[in-house]
């Protein structure tokens, strides 16, 4: 039963084929057995899981109605706060940080009696594309243990792919839900900027961060999204919108294929598989149109200026003074003066990639470089956004490969940060423009899954989910 979708699990619970407690124990047993190979989970939250499962069982035994997520076991990326549990963000600097409160998405899941099994591994502060930047060791791809699961939500994607959780939550700043979903053969949604509250998400780049579901099917993705979305007075960026489940007519659907996403550097097998999926939906009645997003070539550069800039400001809070790792507590070397505490706490607490990005951002924002880098990037961001606006005046959704290649080997890119950054080449523009996008599995090269990305206009989650559901059926 650990290979069930959310709907199958829900039906099993309702028909009393198994209890929520039995299901919870089955998942915990499987994690006990398989996590040592995959290392998807950093920590388990068994007490919370069992308590929520019991609540579900009580409702069922009383003959009451349960919600779709009630009793269904899930996993949470370890940069989302769960009250009274440690939240590391994959970093030594938060190794012992116990969350004093619940993130809004966790409050919403708990109110549905979701069974939260544990916290999943990630690149430190969600900075990375392979989960190798975790301070606690890399996660492995369930399809090939020698390969990365993608990142930064690698633990969340691997957990779902390996049936260690029925679904999970990740966060996506430049592809961190979609890219690992593609590498692990599961579905991953990055909602529109302003769809899901980030209250209780460890901040990385605040103009782009979004929390999104990772699931086995598009239908499951919609179920989780409908629960976690919606306004929250604790996050002023969330836009009030309504749940939209309107049915989409395939014959009225106009699909754009951006030519800049089918270029040199894309694995020919990835291109072939993605083009086959496009052909299938065309034969089923959708209209296909080639379009251009002319500023695509600048997206990654633009992203790698704005994101480190925002990160350098957000991560200034880890100063060795307020919370988190501090040399003050180091008996042998308690830091020399206030400046010494800052310098040494941050040196010892942060890993290489985090320090690299803080320095990059500090550089881009520093006097003399601000206009050439940060301001220029903000202007290019507007051009990228306009490209998408123009595209969506002619088509409903865009289809692209999620990544240029399938999962790469552990260690292959970790010594060369730039080659790692290039993994986000097809996903980062979506975050710059604040759009929703979903990755769905469309085939395999050998044993390795390939993902197709569906991009929609702002708050058009219903459209991309509907197209995903159609493609899943073809």
């Amino acid at each position: 039963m650990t290979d069930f979708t959310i709907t199958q699990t829900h039906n099993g619970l309702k028909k009393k084929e198994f209890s929520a407690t039995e299901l919870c124990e089955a998942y915990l047993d499987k994690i006990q057995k398989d996590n040592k190979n995959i290392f998807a989970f950093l920590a388990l939250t068994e007490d919370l899981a069992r308590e929520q499962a019991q609540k579900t069982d009580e409702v069922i035994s009383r003959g009451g109605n349960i919600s779709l997520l009630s009793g269904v076991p899930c996993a949470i990326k370890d940069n989302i706060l769960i009250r009274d549990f440690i939240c590391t963000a994959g970093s030594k600097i938060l190794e012992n940080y116990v969350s004093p409160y619940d993130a809004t998405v966790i409050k919403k899941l708990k109110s549905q009696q979701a069974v939260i099994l544990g916290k999943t591994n990630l690149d430190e502060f969600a900075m990375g594309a392979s989960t190798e930047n975790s301070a606690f060791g890399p996660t492995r791809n369930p399809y090939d243990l020698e390969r990365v699961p993608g990142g930064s939500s690698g633990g969340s994607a691997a957990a779902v792919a390996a049936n260690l959780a029925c679904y999970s939550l990740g966060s996506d700043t430049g592809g961190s839900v979609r890219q690992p979903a593609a590498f692990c053969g599961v579905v991953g949604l990055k909602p529109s900027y302003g769809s899901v509250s980030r209250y209780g998400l460890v901040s990385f780049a605040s103009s782009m961060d979004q929390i999104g579901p990772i699931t086995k099917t598009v239908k499951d993705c919609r179920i989780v999204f409908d629960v976690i979305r919606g306004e929250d007075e604790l996050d002023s960026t969330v836009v009030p919108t309504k749940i939209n489940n309107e049915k989409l007519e395939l014959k009225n659907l106009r699909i754009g294929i951006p030519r800049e996403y089918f270029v040199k550097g894309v694995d020919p097998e990835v291109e072939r598989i993605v083009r086959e999926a496009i052909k299938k939906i065309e034969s089923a009645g959708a209209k296909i149109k080639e379009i251009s997003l002319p500023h695509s070539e600048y997206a990654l550069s633009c992203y790698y200026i704005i994101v480190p800039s925002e990160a350098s400001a957000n991560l200034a809070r880890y100063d060795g003074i307020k919370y988190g790792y501090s040399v003050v507590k180091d008996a042998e070397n308690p830091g020399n003066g206030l400046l010494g505490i800052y310098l040494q706490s941050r040196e010892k607490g942060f890993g290489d990639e985090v320090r690299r990005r803080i320095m990059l951002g500090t550089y881009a924002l520093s006097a003399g470089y601000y206009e050439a880098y940060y301001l220029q990037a903000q202007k290019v961001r507007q051009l990228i956004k306009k490209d998408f606006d123009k595209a969506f005046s002619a088509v409903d959704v865009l289809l692209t490969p999620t990544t240029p290649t399938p999962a790469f080997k552990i260690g292959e890119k970790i010594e060369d940060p730039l080659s790692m950054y290039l993994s986000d080449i097809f996903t980062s523009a979506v975050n710059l423009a604040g759009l929703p996008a979903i990755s769905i599995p469309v085939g395999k090269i050998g044993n390795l899954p390939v993902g197709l990305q569906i991009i929609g206009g702002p708050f058009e989650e219903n459209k991309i989910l509907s197209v995903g559901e159609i493609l899943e059926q073809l």
Partner: protein
Amino acid sequence: MISEKDVNHIAGLARLGLTSSEVKKFQKDLSSILGYIEKLKKANVKTVRNIDQSPSLKNVMRDDVAVKQSEDVTNKIIGLMPDTKERFLKVKSIF
């Protein structure tokens, strides 16, 4: 290519301690990333007047009222501080 001096300057601004071998490593990494990013300068941005995030998105504000937390929560937050005296956060003197 940025110099070792630049790396030390940036690290100082960012309050990051670095060992001398790390300075060399980050000099190489940052130079290669900045080299890639250079291409951004070629983008023609003459038409861009406004760099507001998005005119269609507006912040949704709540009333600015402090919400009292339970003592349990307050104690947990104080418990996370690295150095305290009674219920105060202890900081090194700055003079």
